[in-house]
């Protein structure tokens, strides 16, 4: 019995039936991590000893019948979620030694559930990037092709799940940072409705766009993990006080009559032919299951990327200002005076892409440019949201490609920021509108690289979105996971 091949829910069943222990699961994953980590670099920090201790505690919980669905099942965490006394670096030199004195709300939930944390995963520095190439600790590799990027910014989490270094992982998504790497590594990645999962303890990139969400190998695990993550948090004022749903329970319902929107704007110029074909095939599969396919228009979605990059960088320029070398984080040796110390600490602590985005965001907010850039972008955001509101009067979900192309090679885009930003062209709309969206595998290219299909739903309609994904997964089958030589 290869434990690392099992889904989280399968592991839960085995634990429940006392056929295995959490320690056995964690040990199996440790073996896998140790074997693959030199090749993949999925993690920034490993917490394997603690994971074993937590596995033993989980086994106690199971014995005492105080366990829940994920008790004893290990997880990997993107390194921008604060973990008490465990380094939380955002893959930046700036925070390379930062040990938070508190847990993020999602981490507290994971600990309470008795889930051993395997480690903190690699990412683009401060979540700014689409390839993990901006990480201070070097990029993670795509398990399907080590020459290629795993996507980003949550590339480490995606790679870890795809390479079976973890059954589950958490990522964060500001403009596609869960869905894009999920697509590029052939796993399921879900960005919830803004406000569904607490942001407390998530080191902010762009506060009005950021959401935490799960990486899993299949849709059922995604639904189950979302059950655990979702919920009102008094520590996050923007968290939604809605009644809790059971997303797992929503799976398996017939989708006959489901209205699936196909936005013309997402199938035009710049879309790779193989990706297009796979996504259209997936849509056909939904039609076969009884869904009704409706062509729709989201005219302003074409402007989403431009609006996104101003809003996200404007917020980021403010969010990252606190990294000034006074209370935590990197401090420069150059301490002639406080201003000089600030400037050099930040210059030394941040990488080039982070600096570029801080500059862009500062510019967009600065006197004389606020109206033309930042405010204009906020108005376009309204138009994008209005587009979706109108579309969801006609359809229940929207299906699109997750990315315009499959995983690209290292170095291919890192020197051209705009080309890199275009990886997010289909994903930023959901963040701007605050609605849920997920990516799941739709097939493989001839070169055996995963293709992602994106399902977008109205705010708080995760149940419909997940059930559509679940139906699709059954209809088109899985692409499996990469075969990696250990």
């Amino acid at each position, binding site marked *: 019995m290869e434990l690392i091949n099992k889904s989280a829910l399968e592991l839960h069943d085995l634990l429940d039936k006392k056929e295995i222990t959490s320690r056995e699961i964690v040990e199996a994953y440790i073996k896998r991590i140790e074997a693959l980590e030199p090749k993949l670099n999925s993690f920034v920090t490993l917490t394997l000893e603690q994971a074993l201790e937590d596995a033993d505690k989980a086994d106690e919980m199971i014995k005492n019948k105080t366990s829940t669905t994920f008790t004893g099942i290990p997880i990997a965490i993107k390194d921008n979620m604060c973990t008490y006394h465990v380094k939380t670096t955002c893959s930046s030199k700036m925070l390379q*030694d*930062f*040990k938070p*004195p508190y847990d993020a709300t999602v981490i507290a939930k994971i600990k309470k559930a008795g889930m051993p944390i395997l480690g903190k995963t690699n990412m683009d520095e401060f979540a700014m990037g689409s390839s993990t190439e901006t990480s201070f600790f070097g990029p993670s590799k795509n398990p399907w092709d080590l020459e290629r990027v795993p996507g980003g910014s949550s590339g480490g989490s995606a790679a870890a799940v795809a390479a079976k270094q973890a059954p589950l992982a958490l990522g964060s998504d500001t403009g596609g940072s869960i869905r894009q790497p999920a697509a590029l590594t052939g796993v399921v990645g879900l960005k919830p409705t*803004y*406000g569904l999962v607490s942001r407390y303890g998530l080191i902010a990139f762009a506060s009005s*766009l950021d959401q935490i969400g799960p990486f899993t190998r299949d849709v059922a695990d995604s639904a189950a993990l979302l059950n655990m993550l979702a919920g009102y948090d008094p520590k996050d*004022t*923007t968290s*939604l*006080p809605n009644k809790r749903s059971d997303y797992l329970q929503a799976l398996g319902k017939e989708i006959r009559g489901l209205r699936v929107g196909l936005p013309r704007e997402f199938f035009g110029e710049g879309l790779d032919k193989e990706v297009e074909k796979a996504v259209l095939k997936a849509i056909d599969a939904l039609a076969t299951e009884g869904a009704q396919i409706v062509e729709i228009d989201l005219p*302003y979605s074409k*402007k989403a990327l*431009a*609006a996104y990059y*101003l809003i996200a960088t404007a917020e980021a*320029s403010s969010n990252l200002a606190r990294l*000034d*070398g*006074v*209370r*935590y*984080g*990197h*401090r420069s040796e150059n301490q*002639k*005076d*406080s*201003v*000089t*110390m600030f*400037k050099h600490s*930040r*210059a030394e602590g*941040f990488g*080039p892409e982070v*600096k*570029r985005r*801080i*500059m*862009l965001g*500062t*510019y967009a907010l600065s006197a004389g440019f606020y109206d*033309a*850039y930042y*405010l*204009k*972008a*906020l*108005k376009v*955001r*309204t*138009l994008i*949201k209005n587009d979706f509101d109108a579309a969801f009067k006609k359809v229940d979900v929207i299906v699109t490609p997750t990315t315009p192309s499959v995983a690209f090679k290292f170095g291919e885009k890192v020197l051209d*920021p*705009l080309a890199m*930003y275009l990886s997010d062209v289909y994903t930023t709309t959901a963040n*701007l*509108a*605050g609605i849920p969206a997920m990516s799941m595998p739709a097939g493989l290219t001839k070169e055996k690289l995963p293709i992602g299909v994106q399902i977008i739903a109205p705010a708080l309609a995760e149940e419909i979105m997940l059930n559509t994904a679940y139906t699709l997964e059954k209809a088109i089958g899985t692409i499996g996971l990469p075969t990696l030589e250990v």
Partner: protein
Amino acid sequence: MSVIDKKTVEHIANLARLYLTEDEKEEMTVSLNKILDFEQQLAEIDTENVKPMAQAVPLENVMREDKVKGSLSIREVFLNAPDEAEGFFKVPRIIEKD
């Protein structure tokens, strides 16, 4: 099209408290211009009478009770401090030197 020049880059870098080398200033001028050029597409959109959307949640009046809860221990306050003295965070002189 060039939207910003090196002087603007220097001004923005100062606002953002980022020290940039001459090379970085050059590179930044080029790449920011490229991005801002891409951003010009927003200018073409008619947004008259459109309200700005700064947040994606329909919430209001989320507040807490005025009740004291524990603060951090002094040890945890200074857990990550680059420079500490007598229970304070120490910073170099605040008034700039010439």
